[in-house]
């Protein structure tokens, strides 16, 4: 998996949670909670979905990396050794 594919995976999972979100325009450092009105349960579900799809654990203390697309991509790339 490349970093771009990883990013596409994250965008896909965000889309499952916020189907109405326009993901084409989101900047790497935008807070997803603000940009797409995602609440704690949405972020929780995103962490669960990504950890299952990528088959890695995402410790609870690291979940905060996933509130931006850029942060999430970097963090998960690091965890996957990309």
């Amino acid at each position: 998996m490349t970093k771009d594919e990883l990013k596409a995976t994250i965008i896909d999972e965000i889309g499952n949670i916020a189907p109405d979100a326009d993901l084409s325009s989101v900047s790497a450092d935008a807070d997803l909670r603000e940009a797409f009105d995602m609440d704690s349960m949405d972020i929780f579900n995103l962490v669960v979905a990504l950890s299952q799809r990528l088959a890695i654990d995402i410790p609870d203390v690291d979940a905060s990396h996933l509130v931006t697309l850029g942060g999430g991509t970097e963090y998960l790339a690091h965890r996957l050794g990309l």
Partner: protein
Amino acid sequence: MGTFNMPSLGADMEAGTLVEWLKHAGDIVHRGDIVAVVETHKGAIEIEIFEDGTIAELLVSEGEKVPVGMPLARIAGTLQAPLEHAAPPGVNVAPPRSPRPNPVIAGPVAGRASPVARRLAAEHGIELSAIIGSGPGGAIVHADVERAIAAQPPARQRPGLDLGQMRLAIAAAMTRSKRDIPHYYLTHSIDASVCTKAVEDYNAARAPAERILLGALLLKAVALSMREFPEFNGFCQEEAFHPSKGIHVGVAVSIRGGGLAAPAIHDTDQLPVGELMAKMRDLIARVRRGSFRSSELTDATVTVSSLGERGVESLLPIIYPPQVAIIGFGTVQQRAWVVDDQVAPRPVLSVTLAADHRVSDGHRGALLLRRIEELLGEADRL
């Protein structure tokens, strides 16, 4: 011999369309079984039966629109008619969004489809009218729907959601509440160190899907407090309060794009917190997708409204009639807090109560909030 009647799923419901029978003549039914799907202006609702027995005869066919209270089926083996169990009269709940993305509307426009096909289509958000049936008489069968699913563009579509209708129903319920219920309000700020730490500790050694959110602990604390404060747990109807034996906490769930529903988690007080979290997660997902059961919509005996992570300090909620109390939680905020005569930073959580003055007074309300504070202070043991 009893009858199973069209339930009232809200004060503004006069009639419903029986979309689908899930049980048929000769079937044995148990209390809590889903026997039919009824379409109202709030969407398609799964209707449960509240008696044990055997279905003797279905009196209404699929697609028929019938008024509230009209018998839908005769039930053998029951001692009395299970009338009007689904909703206390006058109940007025915030509605779910239209559950089936493309609900099957009764009448001559709707094509014939097998129940299995209809269910599959609903699950995938496929409109039956867009499918050409290959079954007898042009009826839509399972394989037709499967073909339609395969042909569907992969683009995600927001399911049809009638926010206008939902807004009208919320307006009706809240107007009724503000008109009929003499609310009083209490607010209290509590040190949330123990409960936020309890969540961290709980989650540290668990896989993502097994973790909990603070919201689950808050529900648990409220549910436990109700055991000692029964005057906040039940219904007020015709100026008489009926306390509820069961503690079914309604969870106010906001819906993307606007809208709100507050279905119940049954026997909230008896659930271990991990299980409670799982139920909450399932419920929120179903609210947003729209698949409800009639009892979830009408059974809440008290409601919790929580602002979550991105809210503000506190909220002053409005009671859902015919309930008599609603508890609000603000967003946890770092605040200066006095501990042992020293100012220290602490996560602070505001908890508020709106309660019905026909049933309780501020003194008991204050004791209730204190008890919730105490329970959250022992959250590591919840």
